[in-house]
């Protein structure tokens, strides 16, 4: 159940492109044709599915505060459990990602040279696709508890990204036949379409809270929103203070 929930949540609600704007550069650059979009999307799913669990292991056993306790237990290194290497996580994560992308590049070149040629420069650029690093960083900051869930999260967010790029590529193929204002053509209209699609995806937000039913998820989501948006929190406090004044 946990897995299914996280899976759909990472596809629809926390969609990489529409909710957090990750991987926008390649999303905009490679979405002119459906075929290349599918190729890149599949590569992103694969890289995310491999790197998120790998980075979860790294985080759990090396980087986290106190993660090195196994050094102490097994090899008798004193004070290892007090180490906090989490400041190294950017470098460690990006190294894992760069290695995996290199691997994908070799595999794609071997098995599908035509896809390799059509993706061109964008295949190595997956290494600097924010969606990939973002997946690992969100995995770290949301404290995903197990390796299995990390895999689910990686695959789910990969599929979410795939869906987004597939949809925009399909729309862009058709939009050629419509008369967009000249200054809005290309980049501008793509942004606005993405914005409209993002509004559509926001409606999935109600999926897990289940309307009026009080679930455990609801307060969590609110707490998150508060953290992201301190202004709102202040407003809310003021409103409460105001209300109590009126009540008195």
């Amino acid at each position, binding site marked *: 159940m946990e897995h299914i929930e996280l899976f759909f949540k990472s596809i629809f609600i926390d969609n990489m492109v*529409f*909710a*957090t*704007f*990750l*991987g*926008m*550069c390649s999303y*905009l650059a490679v979405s002119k044709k459906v075929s290349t979009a599918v190729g890149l999307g599949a590569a992103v799913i694969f890289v995310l599915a491999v790197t998120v669990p790998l980075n979860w292991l790294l985080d759990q056993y090396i980087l986290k505060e106190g993660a090195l306790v196994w050094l102490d237990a097994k090899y008798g290194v004193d004070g290892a459990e007090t180490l906090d290497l989490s*400041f*190294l*996580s*950017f*470098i460690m994560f*990006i*190294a894992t990602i*760069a290695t995996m992308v290199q691997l994908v590049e070799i595999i794609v070149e071997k098995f599908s040279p035509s896809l390799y040629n059509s993706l061109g420069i964008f295949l*190595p*650029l997956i*290494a*600097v*696709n*924010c969606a*990939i*690093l*973002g997946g690992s*960083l*969100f995995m770290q*900051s949301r404290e995903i508890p197990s390796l299995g869930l990390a895999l689910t999260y990686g695959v789910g967010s990969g599929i979410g990204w795939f869906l987004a790029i597939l949809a925009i590529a399909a729309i862009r193929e058709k*939009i*050629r036949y419509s008369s*967009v*204002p*000249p*200054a*809005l*053509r*290309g*980049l*501008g*209209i*793509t*942004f*606005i379409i*993405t*914005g*409209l699609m*993002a*509004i559509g995806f*926001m409606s999935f937000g109600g999926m897990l809270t289940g309307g009026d039913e009080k679930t455990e998820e609801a307060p969590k989501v609110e707490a998150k929103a508060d*953290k*992201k*948006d*301190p*202004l*709102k929190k202040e*407003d809310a406090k*003021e*409103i409460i203070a*105001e209300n109590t004044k009126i009540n008195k």
Partner: protein
Amino acid sequence: MGLLSKKDAALITDPLADNNPITIQVLGICSALAITAELKASIVMALSVMAVLAIGNVVISLMRNIIPSKIRIIVQLVVVAALVIIVDLVLKAFAYELSKTLSVFVGLIITNCIIMGRFEAFALANGPWKSFLDGIGNAAGYGLILIIVGFFRELLGSGTLLGLKVLGDPIEKTGLYAIGYENNGFMLLSPMALIVLGIIIWIQRSRNKSLIEEN
């Protein structure tokens, strides 16, 4: 002859308008959108990117003759990651609340395409002083868009600028709110960042027809 020759000045002014990294080169969009609900976060993000890009450009430019071209991507990533770690720690030390707001997006400066793009396109072929100017210029062009988007989103979304209530108080109904103005909370949600940016691009391209794309 001033401090900057004409060519050097162009390095800074070009990316501000006609060669803007975001609207023309389509680089570094991710972070441009995610953190612009508040003007303050946009400014801090712009400054962080400026620091990383300017220093990184100089470092890469100094090393350009000794980096083997086959492993240059890894070298670049290591340089950026090191600089971003420094920025992240500085933010955590001096602006902890803000670093919470920016959350993972500071880390995502590593994968900001502007940085890799400028390293590849400029720092690997030019001297340190020019690379420094190029870094400042491109980061300023990026920051400019960030600040414009952040300005409109915060102003229309919560009626404040940098946390100051410029439009009056929404609860006590002063200022603009007295004549029935309401905050448009929708501006704070993520889709509006995309639409605001789309509109900026629209305006820019209708002012400068040479930038218009085929389709």
